[in-house]
């Protein structure tokens, strides 16, 4: 038992006194005028746009959604008599909890504890604490206990994961990120419509036909089709795509698809980071808004939310970890040891919530300190054996376990932030509170992270009339704002055409001030990445053959990068998103933080 555990407030402070906690609004499909779905578009184009984002309705919804899920994971104090029939308790946990209680350190504390316990028992007869560990038997994959919406999403993730088998990592020499991830991603992109149609929870389909006419939708679809064609030139997949594209494709799927596809990393940069994770969380948030999760109306205590996190988010993270391992995806914008984690943030929020001090009423706010009895100590994350033990039940330990899998070296050195957090004395509630604050500052408030987040009808760019002024942190003050200045210098081309694609489809690299190259990279650019042949081996001339001489770009080109004034953002053709340029093929390559 955590020594800092603070007993729950006496039950006398009536649970009914808490006002209801905010929840993400569920839209009503029968309101008029009907909801109009919009194709999500990039809006954050330069540093200062982040300030607007922090006062937008989308930001409000993101916060509400994350906090709502977080709150659902906090352990509950339940009266046995009422709890037994309604919920399906995991009895082993509670029994374990009572049986394994650590003996307190000294006699005085022991006495105190005993007294407290007695008092508690008198006050709260037949109470038990319910925790929400990860489901234990995940090997088979699907959990038949889950409601249909959760099962469907689990199947969706299984399908997504199975694509890995169709795109085995390229065995050839490479620098780091595996180019086969581009194949994987193209397959996902080409199948996304079909997959979503098949596996989206049924409630979402109520929205089909809302807002747009069939004609409009078809036009939209065609547009989209051609765009994907130009960006992804893969033979074979387009057939599949047309097969899966049925004329009934409607607005909501398209809008959700942007967040879904944005959740699986960047094919162009071969990376994955917290921005992608956020995109997937908001895909789930969008489903919620559209009433995709059944049973919500009768759920007073976050059961649906818990199933979403434990039954969908954690399996999603597992798919992501497999993608990272398979294709050695680079941590997007890695801060090296000075980031919380190379790729993830959300498991640290939800995992700490799982161990937070229990609450006794559904509307009791998330505790800001204290741990649930029998939780591992925060310092246990530095012990490999403890991590192995708890990684199957807790999302925080699950994430730490993955770090231990991939990193060599002292934990305190390669993960100093997590190491420091492990010294916190006020329990997992304190950690949870800190993680949420940090998420707000390091993920939601960072231009490099949120710049790709798309805005549509579900998550709106419009200002939230009730929004306060965003708090400026040190890092927010120091974050790049210069792209705006730079755009001004180069002729005000700061706002590139809004690409309708989600975070995943953004070409991403075209800094607005970057001048068009003197010539489009020739055929050589489309070739596979260079063989990492023995560095001393004499090249037989690939890339420097006679054709090179012909393509040679003389200096002082009239319209070249040398002196030509900026002519605006380069056309996409000048840098195909699929270009396996070696520079993009590597681990922890430093991206200009001001890069779009």
């Amino acid at each position, binding site marked *: 038992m955590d020594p800092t555990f603070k007993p729950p407030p006496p039950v006398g402070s009536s649970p009914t006194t808490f006002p209801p906690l905010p929840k993400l609004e569920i839209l009503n499909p029968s309101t008029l005028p009907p909801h109009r779905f919009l194709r999500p578009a990039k809006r954050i184009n330069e540093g200062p746009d982040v300030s607007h984002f922090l006062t937008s309705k989308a930001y409000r919804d993101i916060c509400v959604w994350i906090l709502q899920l977080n709150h659902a994971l906090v352990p509950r104090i339940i009266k046995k008599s009422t709890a037994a029939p309604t919920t399906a308790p995991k009895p082993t946990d509670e029994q374990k909890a009572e049986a394994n209680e650590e003996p307190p350190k000294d006699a005085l504390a022991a006495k105190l504890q005993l007294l407290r316990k007695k008092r508690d028992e008198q006050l709260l007869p037949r109470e038990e604490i319910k925790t929400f560990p990860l489901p234990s038997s995940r090997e088979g994959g699907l959990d038949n206990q889950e409601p249909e919406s959760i099962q469907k999403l689990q199947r969706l993730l299984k399908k997504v994961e199975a694509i890995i088998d169709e795109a085995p990592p390229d065995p050839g020499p490479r620098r780091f990120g595996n180019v086969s991830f581009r194949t994987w991603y193209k397959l996902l992109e080409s199948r996304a419509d079909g997959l979503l149609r098949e596996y989206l929870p049924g409630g979402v389909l109520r929205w089909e036909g809302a807002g747009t006419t069939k004609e409009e939708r078809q036009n939209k679809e065609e547009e989209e089709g051609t765009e994907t064609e130009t960006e992804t030139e893969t033979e074979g997949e387009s057939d599949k795509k047309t097969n899966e594209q049925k004329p009934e494709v409607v607005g909501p799927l398209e809008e959700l698809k942007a967040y879904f596809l944005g959740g699986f990393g960047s094919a*162009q940069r071969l990376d994955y980071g917290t921005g992608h994770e956020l995109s997937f969380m908001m895909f789930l948030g969008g489903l919620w808004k559209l009433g995709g999760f059944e049973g919500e109306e009768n759920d007073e205590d976050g059961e649906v939310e818990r199933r979403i996190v434990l039954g969908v988010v954690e399996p999603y993270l597992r798919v992501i970890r497999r993608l990272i391992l398979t294709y050695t995806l680079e941590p997007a914008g890695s801060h090296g040891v000075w980031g919380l984690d190379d790729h993830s943030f959300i498991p640290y929020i939800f995992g700490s919530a799982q161990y937070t001090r229990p609450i006794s009423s559904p509307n009791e706010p998330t505790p800001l300190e204290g741990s649930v009895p029998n939780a591992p100590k925060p310092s246990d994350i530095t012990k490999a054996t403890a991590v192995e033990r708890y990684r199957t039940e807790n999302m925080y330990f699950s994430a730490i376990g993955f770090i231990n899998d991939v990193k060599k070296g002292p934990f*305190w050195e390669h993960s100093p932030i997590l190491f420091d957090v492990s*010294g916190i004395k006020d329990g997992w509630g304190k950690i949870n509170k800190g993680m949420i604050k940090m998420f707000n500052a390091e993920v939601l408030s960072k231009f490099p992270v949120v710049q790709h987040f798309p805005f549509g009808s579900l998550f709106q760019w419009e200002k939230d009339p009730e929004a306060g002024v965003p708090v400026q942190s040190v890092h927010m003050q120091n974050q790049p704002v210069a792209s705006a200045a730079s755009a001004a210098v180069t002729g005000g081309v700061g706002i590139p055409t809004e690409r309708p694609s989600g975070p995943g489809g953004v070409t991403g690299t075209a*800094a607005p001030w970057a001048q068009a190259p003197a010539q489009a990279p020739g055929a050589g650019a489309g070739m596979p990445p260079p063989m*990492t042949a023995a*560095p001393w081996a004499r090249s037989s001339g690939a890339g420097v053959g006679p054709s090179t001489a012909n393509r040679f770009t003389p200096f002082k080109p009239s319209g*070249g990068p040398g002196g030509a004034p900026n002519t605006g953002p380069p056309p996409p053709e000048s840098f195909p998103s699929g270009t396996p340029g070696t520079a993009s093929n590597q681990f922890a390559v430093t991206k200009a933080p001001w890069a779009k």
Partner: protein
Amino acid sequence: MSDLDRAIAQLRACRPIPESDVRELCHKAREILIEEGNVVTVNAPVTICGDIHGQFHDLMELFRVGGDPPDTNYLFMGDFVDRGFYSLETFLLLLCLKVRYPDRMTLIRGNHESRQITTVYGFYDECYRKYGSANVWRYCCDVFDYLALGAIVLGASNTISPSAGESSIPTTPEGDEVEIEVCNAQGEVMSRFPRPNNGTNSDLQSRTNGIPPPSNTGPPGSGASGSSRGTVGNPAGAVLCVHGGLSPLIDKVDKIRLLDRKQEVPHEGAMCDLLWSDPDEIDGWGLSPRGAGFLFGADIVKVFNHRNDLSLIARAHQLVMEGFKEMFDASIVTVWSAPNYCYRCGNVAALLELSEDDSGLGVLARNNGDVNRSDGGGGGGLGESEPQPMKGPARRYRVFQAAPQDSRGMPAKKPVADYFL
């Protein structure tokens, strides 16, 4: 023992020095660096290193493998800071060594030696955590602005010097000149590669003959072609060291010398490109996926080297799993000196040794200052020689792995970030 020596000893033990000492050190360093040109001239022998990224213990391993300063001359091609745990100790130690042995240590600027990049990628956080304020970060950033942008290595030998370590491979047959030698961390020769025979050379030549002659060199005898080659003995050609790569705005090394470098790294322009660009298997120039700098192909490198009398460009900036990677017929090499980068990449690191030319033709005096810069070889012309790639200097790569970790104990936990208070 001077204060400086004491600081060096303390930093070698991986212990930060007090804030006031940092301030003084940075002040002294600036006085030295301000005297250096944008392109520093360095004479062989010299050991060239790539990115370190705060991997202090691996830097110690590098010194063990490459020889301790000042006994070995070092040239570090930037990216001392960010991502690693010990950026502060790493940079301050290198800076101390620079102040103590200015002619034996050369530090040039990487794209991470910048205010904006260090706030994003960790050095700022590290300084704040280690000192409780951003003052030290500010002092360091002021030094960054004075770091040179590149270096020219002169007087490197065509032939490999005898290896200090024991050779596990019999020396090559007589007559075959060794061009590349790869050693492991114990100094044992892992492989040797003779210079290609004449056939290959003519092959090379025929290929480069298709390239139009450079148009920007001055006539023989003019200032623009004041060649170091042939007059002061630089048989192997000069080696340009720069962190990232080339810029479409820079066709001659002398143009680098004209830049005003004493500023934060700009988002675009020549100075930015030198620190951000990458070579790639493309023709000509391409956009960089990094969002700064450019990609450049083999043709660009070959013409640049040819025009500038260079035999090789050494650069860093990109992780290479094998520690080093020569590209484009050995006209450019990437050197990477951070083993097991970010604790997870599993790569080895390398350093590149260029030995002193012992042909007796004489070597330019080392000059850190601006005087006689035109002797630096960078402005060399081609008027008097055939346009063909120069024979590169003999190159010895020493490959090493991450330092063992058993000696590092677990520290006390630090106060956590504000978020958790």
